[in-house]
């Protein structure tokens, strides 16, 4: 049930300060990745999970650790390997003696944390990967018929390496769909590298101050959810997601499967989160356009011909955003869009 009360200017102002501080702190941890930091912050404020993809050594893990410290949240890190079992993540029942009787006692796994860093998630088998499905969507795990609720907030920040694909298991579509964003971590420029070399030492982790408490961050998340989403923006989101399906737009040529309704919900939540980060009381067309790539990129499947033709999901999303007008109105032919 959506709340009818929208975030006030005061609430937005209160939330904006820690967000700005978080942004600044993380920029001190990861140089030259301002856009990536903004998107990761946007994702966690929108209560979403984020999948980071990039080459080794460019700061993915560092960013996650820095975020955990700044938010003052409990963090667990799991290095995914092919022999990792589901129970290694969710936890296992252990036979213990309690009051003279031997019974199974649930031993929580590393998933019982606020921020789970799933490093190289694509190296685990699909069975293990799917152990995260219920946790990511419903924020709880079920072991031997017993359901255990995860701590609030709960985020999965997963990383995967686009090279060395031998011995890896591509994430199942259902799993990928549960990530709010899939972000590509790009290499640094020469100036950024010079700055890293100047300010960092190998093996020494950067100091990250605690910016918010868990309660404050929960309040920020609550405020983000109460950001106003105008009907025209919701309509725009719906038309963009619909246009990713085959036959619904010119840009969707070569698409095998389009984005799901969950993608539309994710885009709406992320847009509200971005609006809050920018101190606005409403989400806008610009928010949707800015986040469409991060939200839809991993949710579109291309067919064989399109892939062989060199097309990518990202190019499809960009084409869809360019094709779908913000208003569902046509323009008379006697008028043209100004250059």
């Amino acid at each position: 049930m959506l709340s009818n009360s929208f975030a006030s200017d005061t609430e937005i102002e209160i939330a904006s300060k820690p967000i700005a501080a978080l942004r600044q702190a993380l920029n001190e941890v990861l140089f030259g990745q301002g856009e990536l930091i903004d998107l990761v912050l946007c994702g966690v404020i929108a209560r979403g999970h984020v999948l980071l993809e990039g080459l080794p050594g460019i700061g993915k893990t560092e960013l996650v650790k820095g975020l955990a410290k700044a938010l003052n949240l409990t963090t667990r890190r799991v290095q995914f390997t092919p022999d990792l079992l589901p129970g290694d993540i969710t936890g296992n029942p252990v036979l213990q003696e309690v009051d003279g009787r031997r019974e199974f006692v649930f031993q929580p796994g590393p998933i019982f944390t606020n921020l789970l860093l799933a490093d190289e998630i694509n190296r685990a088998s699909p069975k293990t990967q799917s152990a995260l499905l219920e946790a990511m969507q419903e924020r709880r795990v079920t072991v031997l018929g017993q359901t255990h609720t995860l701590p609030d907030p709960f985020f999965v920040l997963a990383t995967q390496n686009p090279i060395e694909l031998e011995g890896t298991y591509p994430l199942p579509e259902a799993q990928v769909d549960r990530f709010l964003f899939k972000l590509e971590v790009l290499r640094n420029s020469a100036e950024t590298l010079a700055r890293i070399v100047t300010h960092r030492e190998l093996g020494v982790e950067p100091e990250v101050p605690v910016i918010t408490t868990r309660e404050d961050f929960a309040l920020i998340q609550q405020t983000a959810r109460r950001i106003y989403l105008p009907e025209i923006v919701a309509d725009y989101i719906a038309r963009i997601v619909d246009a990713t399906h085959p036959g619904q737009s010119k840009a969707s040529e070569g698409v095998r499967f389009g984005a799901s309704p969950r993608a539309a919900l994710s885009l709406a939540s992320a847009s509200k989160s971005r609006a809050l980060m920018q101190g606005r009381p409403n989400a806008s067309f610009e928010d949707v356009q800015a986040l469409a790539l991060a939200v839809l990129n991993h949710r579109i499947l291309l067919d064989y011909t399109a892939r062989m033709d060199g097309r990518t999901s990202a190019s499809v999303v960009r084409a869809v955003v360019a094709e779908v007008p913000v208003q569902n109105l046509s323009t008379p032919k006697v008028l043209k869009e100004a250059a």
Partner: protein
Amino acid sequence: MNDQAALSTRWHRLARRTARKVNLGWLLESITPLLFSAGALGFAMIVWVRSRGAAIDLMHIWPWLLAAVLLALMTSCLLARRHFISTNAALVRLESQLHLHNALTVAQLGRGAWPEIPSTVADGLEWRWSRVSGPSAACAVCLITALYLPINPDVAATLPSVEPQAWQQMDQWLEKLQEEKVVTPESKDEQAGKIDTLRDQPQEKWFSHESLNASDTLKEQLQCDLANQSQNMEKAERSLNALQNYADKLSEQVKEQLLKEFDEALEGMKSGMLELDPKLLNELSQIDPKNLKSLSKEQLDQLRESLKNKSGTCEGMGGKGFLGDGEGRDDLLAEGLGEGEEGDQPGKGGITRGPGTAPLTLSKDENDFGTNKNEAVSNQDMSRAQLGATLGLQDGKHDVDKTYTGPTTAGDTSNKGQGGQQVWRESLTPVEKAVLKRVFK
């Protein structure tokens, strides 16, 4: 608060301006086909009126033109109305163009403040002047062209009409018959009157089934009359010729026959549907075939020549063609049969041969008509061959290799590919082939 109210007013004014612009665009787009239609219709109507020789007064056109424009405007307004945008939609257009993060929509709903108005407010829409002015210009050009296009009303009114070919043919025949003095003018006028009756019906019915049927019947009737008259004149001329030149050699019976034929031909000429030249008929009537010697040789020759010419004229108009090639001569041949003297021997040929029969003998060869003999018929002329026709058959056998190869083991193949041979065939679609070609290039 006052500032907000002022901002709201100004934003709404800008939005209304944008909405008016878009709605006017839709109105112009809806009127475009109407303008084209009106231009074409006006062009056709003005040209038609002018081609009838009627003068067009420009003062009388203006009210009609004004009424037509008003009607077109009302119709296009009704058609374009479903595309019209509201002020709210125009506000969304403005905020998206000015990247205001939907601030105008939010302010309109009372959930936020109206933003400041930028120094330049552009709705991002420009007129396509070629599309705006094109239809109006085309319509005007059509009307002006129709008004000032040089048209000669006489030429337009007397455009040559195409009439059935049979009428023209019959007209030509009658003209020639009168020119050669074969028929009387009255008879010619009577026939021409029948053609005119057909011609008097409305032009659009000239080529109707009934009209064409009547025309053909009339033409056939005329041809038949001409053929009969031609035959009668030829018969009279032949009889006169025989009586004039071979009277001494003919028997009395033959002479009687010729006299009878002459009389019949004369009667035929008089009673024919086409009334022949009275001068010729008078001359023929005054001749006594039994006493031709009362006429000079020159008079008879002249009369025969006249009959020959007139018969030829009638023949030239398809008289013979109507009855069939040589039909008249067949009749003459048939009439000649049986006129030979009877005798025991078979006829020796000629038109006066007797009706004798071939003698019956006991020899087998005499009665062998060759009916049991089969002969192959072949046709090397392929010019009339049709599609699907069998042009030839040939017996043949498949080229089967009967060489014994001995038993082969399971899984072995007797057709082993050699170097350069195609041993398998791709089953890829053309699209997939193109993709693979591009990938491995």
